[in-house]
Each structure stands twice: as structure tokens, then as C-alpha cells.
């Protein structure tokens, strides 16, 4: 049973990727819907399995690490698998309608989409550093492909920039992995953590850590390494942007966070933790500020991602050298932030895509008068915006609340200011869009309402993000599912 599930989660996407490479877009679409159902089913089944028993290690095909692929199935990984299933399905459904099936290059969409999904699952479930690297690369390459798919010069330029940045990041990470392996002789995170505890003060481990962290920060687009993100996310097709912003950047952050939580207590320093926090804070401020200045709708959303990613890096100072309870709060807050941002940002990009479809323009100022027609997508956009502003009862609020508590309880009150300022600045750019839609003097008297399905999907995502705060308690309980050896 379990092996089927695990295989389903990793190999179905790969298989679907290969198969859909052989068929056209339309057939691929049918195929993919079936695949999505399978994926969602497998994810939910995994949830039940873990809830019934507990988390476990799983060696794929019976091959033990380091040569085989070892998977770590715990509450956190499960949460992210579920999140991926939800968001990727939503984006896939949206893309199936949104993309023009008659363009020849669209046939590559589904393979790339499935490769991406496979990479994501690999990262969530991966237990050793090298497999994480492979998953990461799989994600990167398919994401770049998706950005470039059928694009013009601008899209290509953006995707090239993205690719180069991501490759450099991967290399930095890989070099770090190499140093780590040289040092510890193992690739398993757990084992490494164990060894680091046993032999503190190993020279070279610090450099390895730095390389990995920086590489991952580059891939996560932490300020000031975020330059590649806004062009790529802004220029890609909306469903692709949604996938990229919601999930792809989270993958590298997920690895960074796991590294930090396992190795940080022994290898990290206060200065490093604070540096990460400061960069995160700067990302929040700078990203939000630039989002306020962008003339184009999707650029606003893309810069908003830069800002929201900044929040995530507050995890580093809030889990270093604090009590177990505070660290717990910070981790919970971070998980919620990842989830709520994923849902909200996906909703936002999809809604933005719909709005662009309706108005025929990507410019914020062309939204003038749109609110008169009460477009569904504007609502979705707004609801997602509420989550980004982290107002209650959204998941964003729950996350912010936990982070606030963590920073207050650990005495690092300065992060509260960042959290609050970030909320206000995000309000500034969200309301900029609203404001534009309320302008009354436009000549607009016709309005193209996109197909219902296109509009329903972002709304669903936005509502999920909105309701996340209401179900934060059960959600956090999934994350905190116990972890036992075996499997």
C-alpha cells in the first residue's frame, strides 16, 4: 500500500510527463486531468496513512541511501505534498482552459508541468541533500522551460536570466553539498545533524553551510538576489506564474529551512541568523515598495512575491538560540505563511490573468472602471490581497500572529516592526489595484467575462487562503503529526 502511494507521488508525474510528451495539448489535457485526480487521491491517502500510523522513512524500491533514494514522510512534508496537489491542480485546470491549444508549442506544457510536479514532490519528500539537489534541478529546468514556452524575446530574456541565476544557485548549493559530504561522509540530513551535534566545531562546515544557504537564497530570490524573479514571474503565462510563485520558490526555501533547523543549532551563529533576518526584512520593504511603483499588473504581483518571501527568512533569527516553544511558534508561523502565500499568490496570479484576459491589457491603469462590472476575478484578487495584507481571518494573519508571538517571546521585538510595515506596504499595493478599478471616468461600457471555470478557480484558492486562518488549528495538527522510525 505504502509503496504504491510513494511511487504514485513520484513516478506518476514522471510517467505522465513522458506520456504527454508524445501527444498533443488537447489529449495531454485529458490525460493530465486524470493525473491530477490520481495525485490528489494519492496525497490524501498518504495523509490518512500518516494520520493513522505516523511519519516514516521510506527507501524507494528498497535501495537504501546514499545510493538509493530515501524519502522522509513527516507531517511537514505531508502538508506540502497536499498543498502542491491543491495548487498545482488548480493551476493545471486553469491552464487547460486559459492556454490557447492551437499554438504548436503548447504541447510541451504538460510534460514540463508534470516534471515540475515530480520535482516538487521529490523535494518535499527528499531526505538527503543530493536528492534534494536533483529535485531542485528538475524544478528549475522545467520552470524555466515553462517561462520560455512560446514566448517572445522578452520572455526568453527573462527565462535566460532565470536559468543562469538558478544554475549558479544550484552550483553553489552543490558545492556546499560536496563540502558537507567531504566533512561528514553522509548525505542524510538526519545523520548530518547527528554528527554535527557529536563533533561541534568542524572546520569547513561553516563554508559549506554558507554556500548552500546562499545558493538556495538565490533560488528563493532573497533580496538582493531577487533580480531574476520579477521578470520571469511577470512575463510568464498566468498559470505558470502562479505555479512559480506559489510553489517553485518555496521548494528551495524548504530545503534551506530544513538545513537550518537540522544543522543551524550547531553550525549557525547569531550573526548569520540576524543577517538572514535583515535581508528578509529588506526584501519585505524593497519588494513592497517596488510593487507599489510597477505600472503592470503582473509585475505588481511578482514584486509582491519578493516581499512575501522576505517574511520567510525571519524563520532564521526566530529559531536560533530561542526556547523550544518559540521555535515551535516560528516554524508553525512559517509553514502557515508558506501555505497561505502559495494559495493567495496562485489565486492572485490566476485572477490577474483573467483580468488581463478581460481588459486586454496588462497595465494597472487600464483597470479603470472595471469594478463596475463586479468581475469575479477582482474579488478573488482582493480576497487574496487580504491574505497578503495578513488581515484576519486569513492564513496570512495566522502566520503573522505566530511570528509576532515568536518575536515578542524571544525578545526580538524589531521583527514585529518589519511584520507590521510589511502588512501595511502590501495593503498599499493591493489597494493600488482596487483604486484603479474604482476610477469612474473610463469609457468602458462592455466587459468580457471570462469563462466561469477560469473565474472559479482563483476564487476557490482565494477562499482557501482566506479560510486558512479559521482552520489553522487542524492544519497545524497535520504538520505536527508524529514521526516514527520505520515504514
Amino acid at each position, binding site marked *: 500500500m505504502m509503496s504504491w502511494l510513494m511511487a504514485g507521488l513520484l513516478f506518476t508525474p514522471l510517467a505522465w510527463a513522458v506520456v504527454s510528451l508524445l501527444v498533443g495539448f488537447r489529449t495531454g489535457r485529458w490525460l493530465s486531468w486524470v493525473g491530477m485526480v490520481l495525485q490528489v487521491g494519492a496525497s490524501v491517502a498518504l495523509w490518512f496513512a500518516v494520520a493513522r500510523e505516523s511519519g516514516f522513512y521510506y527507501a524507494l524500491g528498497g535501495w537504501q541511501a546514499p545510493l538509493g533514494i530515501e524519502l522522509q514522510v513527516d507531517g511537514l512534508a505531508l502538508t506540502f505534498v497536499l498543498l502542491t496537489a491543491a495548487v498545482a491542480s488548480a493551476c493545471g485546470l486553469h491552464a487547460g482552459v486559459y492556454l490557447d491549444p492551437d499554438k504548436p508549442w503548447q504541447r510541451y506544457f504538460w510534460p514540463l508541468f508534470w516534471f515540475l510536479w515530480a520535482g516538487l514532490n521529490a523535494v518535499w519528500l527528499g531526505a538527503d541533500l543530493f536528492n534534494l539537489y536533483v529535485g531542485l534541478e528538475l524544478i528549475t529546468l522545467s520552470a524555466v522551460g515553462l517561462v520560455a514556452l512560446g514566448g517572445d524575446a522578452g520572455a526568453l530574456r527573462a527565462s535566460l*536570466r532565470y536559468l543562469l*541565476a538558478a544554475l*549558479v*544557485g544550484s552550483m*553553489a548549493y552543490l558545492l556546499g553539498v560536496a563540502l558537507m559530504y567531504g566533512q561528514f561522509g553522509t548525505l542524510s540530513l538526519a545523520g548530518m545533524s547527528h554528527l554535527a551535534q557529536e563533533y561541534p566545531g568542524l572546520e569547513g*562546515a*561553516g*563554508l559549506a*553551510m*554558507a*554556500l548552500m*544557504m*546562499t545558493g538556495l*537564497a*538565490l533560488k528563493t530570490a532573497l533580496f*538582493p*538576489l*531577487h*533580480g*531574476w524573479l520579477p*521578470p520571469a514571474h511577470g512575463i510568464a503565462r498566468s498559470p505558470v506564474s502562479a505555479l512559480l510563485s506559489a510553489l517553485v520558490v518555496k521548494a528551495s526555501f524548504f530545503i534551506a529551512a530544513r538545513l537550518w533547523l537540522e544543522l543551524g543549532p550547531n*553550525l*549557525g*551563529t547569531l*550573526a*548569520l541568523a540576524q*543577517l538572514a533576518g535583515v535581508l528578509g526584512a529588506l526584501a519585505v520593504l524593497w519588494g513592497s*515598495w*517596488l510593487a507599489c*511603483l510597477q505600472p503592470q499588473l503582473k509585475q505588481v504581483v511578482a514584486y509582491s512575491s519578493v516581499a512575501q518571501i522576505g517574511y520567510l527568512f525571519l524563520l532564521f533569527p526566530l529559531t536560533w538560540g530561542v526556547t523550544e516553544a518559540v521555535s515551535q511558534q516560528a516554524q508553525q508561523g512559517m509553514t502557515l505563511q508558506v501555505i497561505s502565500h502559495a494559495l493567495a499568490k496562485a489565486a492572485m496570479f490566476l485572477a490577474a490573468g483573467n483580468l488581463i484576459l478581460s481588459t486586454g491589457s496588462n497595465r494597472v491603469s487600464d483597470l479603470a472602471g472595471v469594478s463596475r462590472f463586479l468581475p469575479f476575478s477582482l474579488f478573488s484578487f482582493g480576497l487574496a490581497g487580504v491574505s497578503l495584507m495578513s488581515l484576519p481571518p486569513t492564513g496570512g494573519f495566522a502566520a503573522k500572529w505566530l511570528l509576532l508571538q515568536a518575536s515578542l517571546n524571544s525578545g526580538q521585538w524589531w521583527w514585529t516592526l518589519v511584520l507590521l510595515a510589511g502588512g501595511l506596504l502590501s495593503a498599499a499595493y493591493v489597494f493600488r489595484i482596487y483604486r484603479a478599478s474604482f476610477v469612474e471616468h473610463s469609457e468602458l461600457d462592455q466587459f468580457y467575462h471570462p469563462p466561469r471555470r477560469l473565474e472559479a478557480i482563483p476564487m476557490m484558492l482565494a477562499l482557501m487562503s482566506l479560510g486558512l486562518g479559521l482552520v489553522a488549528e487542524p492544519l497545524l495538527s497535520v504538520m505536527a503529526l508524529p514521526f516514527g522510525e520505520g515504514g
Partner: protein
Amino acid sequence: MSPEMTFLVLAAVGLPLVWLLLVPVAGRWLRFGLPLLPLPALVLALVPGDWQWALPWLLLDSLWLLDDLRRVFLVLTALLWCSAGLFAIGYLDGKHLKRFVVCWCLTLCGNLGLVIAGDAGSFYSFFALMTFASYGLVVHDGSVEALHAGRVYMVMAVLGEMLLLAGLILAVAVTGSGQLADLPEAIAKADHAHLITGLLLTGFGVKAGLPMLHFWLPLAHPVAPTPASAVLSGAMIKAGLLGWVLTLPLGHEGFRDWGDALVIAGAVASLGGALIGVCQTQTKAVLAYSSISQMGLMLLLVGAALATPERVDLILPVIALYALHHGLAKGALFLSSTVRLPRQRVSRGLFWLLIALPGFALAGLPWTSGALAKLAMKEVLKADKLAMVTAPYLAPLMTAGAVATLLLVLRFLWLQRLKDETGRNPLALTLGWSLATLGSLLLFWWLPWQAEGLVASPRWLPESYQYWPLLWPILVALVIGGLAARLIPRAPRIPPGDALVLLELGGRWLWSWLERPVFRGPRAPASLNRLWRHLPGWSASAEQGLRAGGILALTVLILLMAALL
């Protein structure tokens, strides 16, 4: 309380309000209700027996009641409003009739209600209703003078209301209950007894024309429609007096200095008012100053009562008597100011007699209410029975007051003669005026006065030895008046409202200061605006720089992190 009485009380206060409901539907016949409206109140005043009616759900736990003191005021108020209403039927043209009726009814309701109010909340409510509604009566005419007078009236009224509110709140805070009957004792015991006394004195003083708070009177009376002036001066001004009597700590020790201060204020009012009044050129302005002067005389009584607790029971009936006397007489005089004289000699003489008699009554002509009031006043203010510094001066003051009063009346008559309007009067107008005059001349004959046998009915007539003291001031005044008419070709002009002119200058300066930019809200400095304009551009180029140098930044970051670890 019997149901009939309940109904009567409700009718007395409520009838004017009910009449209001007719305003939207009624036409020109609306005015015919005016004399009827106060009738239930009049009946109420004449039904013997004191009563109290507790209304715990109304306002702040209300109590309405009627006792002897209030009864006098109720008679005065109802009668005067009645005759003024009658007069108004003939006086009014159709202009702004509805508005006038609305204001009239509201003012009437307030004026009647405050008399029977027994608790601070309802008293103050009715008082305020009267104050604010009567604004409409003052500015009814809509002329520039009327509007100016209205503004002055309103400013002073608001100030008065606020002083009053402060005083009442302070006093009620001490008692804990809002009953007026408990107030004097509470004030006497309060920590801020003198503050409260001062607030109440000045608060009611605005209405009662206390010197330096009197400015609105000579402005408002001339411009208001005549029936309105009559009630303003006859009834409403007495509301202030009633307020004093009900709330000041009369009968309690410790306010002797206040008594002296009031006497001085009264002296200033009665003599100063007269002095300024004779310089006026409008009949109604003269009458207004006369009211100020008369209220000055009543101030003497209030001062004496405040200073001599043990004499309060004697003085209060005299105050009531004096108020009744002055109210009716002054009402009659005001009404007469717009009466046209008939052409025939005989009836013309009769008219002059009827016009002059209330005036002479004010001066204390024997066989009039004035004589009764003056005598009673003299009796209670005998120097040997009062323990005041100013006690010895009271008698001469009263005499001087009588002279001054008559001088004002003579001035009024003189100006009235100058106007020399002849013609027919509308019937209602004549009736109203006659009613007021007759009331002034005859009413007091029937009233059962009881003040320790002092002026007890039926011995209201002056004793023979009293004629001379009553008469000689009248003679002196006649002589002075005659001489003045001969010798002074034109009276020096003093604008109505005297010292107000200076105050208004100050007010204008203050207003111009308020309009300065300080109160217009802050503005961001220009440099900040400039910075704000350039910021987006700078940010965009910084972002371009970051994008280009991203990988360089990465290198630096690796090194930095390695150093930190």
C-alpha cells in the same frame, strides 16, 4: 393627583405643542389659537391647592409641582401670553406666519413648563426651550437690526445656558437628586458654594438682565414684534428671576457678601439703566431699559434675601408680587407702543390714560399695583431688619429708583407722542392691549396676599401716612421731566446695547484671528514633496542595478556568510 388635574397639567404644557401639529395643515386661521393656548395654564393656576406630580420616566426623573410662589408666576405668565396672543392676532400680517406660530408655541410651552417644573432637569429643559425658540420671535422681522439683535441674543443666551448648566450640574452633584427644592441647602453646604452661586446668578442673570449681561434686551425688544417684546419683557425676563428664587441658597447663612454685591448690581442696573434709557430714541428700547432698571430693583430684594436668611419668608412673596406687578405693567406698556391712537379727542384721551397708567403704576402711583409693590418692598427692606453693609442705602435707592422709573416712563410717553400714529386698530389688537392693561390695573385687587399682615388683603390700600412717600418721587420726576423737555433739545445718543459695541470689536478681532492659517491644518514641506516625486525613479534604477549585479552580490554574500560562520 386626580385625573382631572393630571389632564389639566398636561393640557397646560402640552396644548402649545399640540397646536404645533396643526401648523402643516392650517392656513391663516392658525393665529386665532394663540390667545387660547395659555388658557389651560391659567385655569391650572386658579385651581386652588398645591400639588406634586412625579414623572420618574420623564427626562431625568422629573417632578412637576405648583406652590404659592409658582402660582403667582403662572398667573402672570398665562395672562400675559394670553393677552399678547390676542394682540398678535391683530398685529400679525401673513409674513412667515407659520414660523412665527411655531416659535411662539415652543416659547410658550417652555415658559409655562419652567414655572411648574420641580426638578432641575425639566426646569432647565423648559428654560432652554424658551430661550432658543424665542430667537425666532426676536428675528422674526428679518431686518438687519433684527438679525444683529438676534445674534447678540443668541450668543448671550448660549453663554447664559452654559453658565446655568455648569451651576446646575455642580449643585445637583452635591445633592445627588435633581429636585429643585433640595438645591439651596445643598449649595449652601457645597465646597464650591460661592462658585455655584456665582454661576447660577450669572446664568439666570442673562435672562433677567443683570448689568453687563443685559446687552441683548435693548437690542432685541425694539426689533421683535410687539407681542413678542411684551412676553419677552413681561414673562420671560421673570423666568430668570424665578430661577434665582428657586435655586439660590436663600435662607442659608454665609452669603452676606453676595447680598451686598447684588444690591450694588441692582443699584447700577436701576439707575444706570434709567440713565441710558432716557437717551434712547426708540420707544421699545426705552421700555427695555426700563425693564433693566426694574429688574435692578428686584435685585435689591434678592440680595436682601440672600444676605438675611431669616427674612426670606417675608421677602419671597414680595418678590413674587413685584414680579407680577412689573410683568403685567411692562407687558401692557409694550403692547401700547404699537397701538394707534384714535382721532376723536375723547377716546384719544382715554387711550393716553390707559397707556400712561401702567407706566405710572411702575413708578408707584397710589391705588395701583405699583404702590402696593413699593410699599411692601419698603417694608421688608427696612434697614434695621437687615444685616447688610448696604442696608442703609436701600431706602434712598428705592426712592431714586422710583424717580428713574417714572423718568423712563415719561421718556416713553414723549417718544410715543412724537410718533403720533393715528388710525384704526384691529379689534384683536385693541382687545389684547386692553386685557393686559386691565390685568395690570385690576388683577392684584383679587389676589390673596399674605405676608405676615404686611400687605395682607384687604388692607392693600396705602395708609394715609404712606401717600407722601409714594407721591413725592413722582412729583420730582415730573419736574425733572418737564425741565428736561424744556431745556434739553436733543438727548445725547447712546446706542442700544451700550457697552456691547466695545465687546463686538473684540469679538471681530478674535474671529479674524481664528481664521488664520494656524487652524487650516498642516502642509508637508516642499522638500519632502520633491523627495517623494523623485523616489520612484531612484528606486527603479536601483532595482536595475541590483538585477545586473545580482551575481556579484551573491559572491559577496557567500564570503560574508562564510566570515560569519
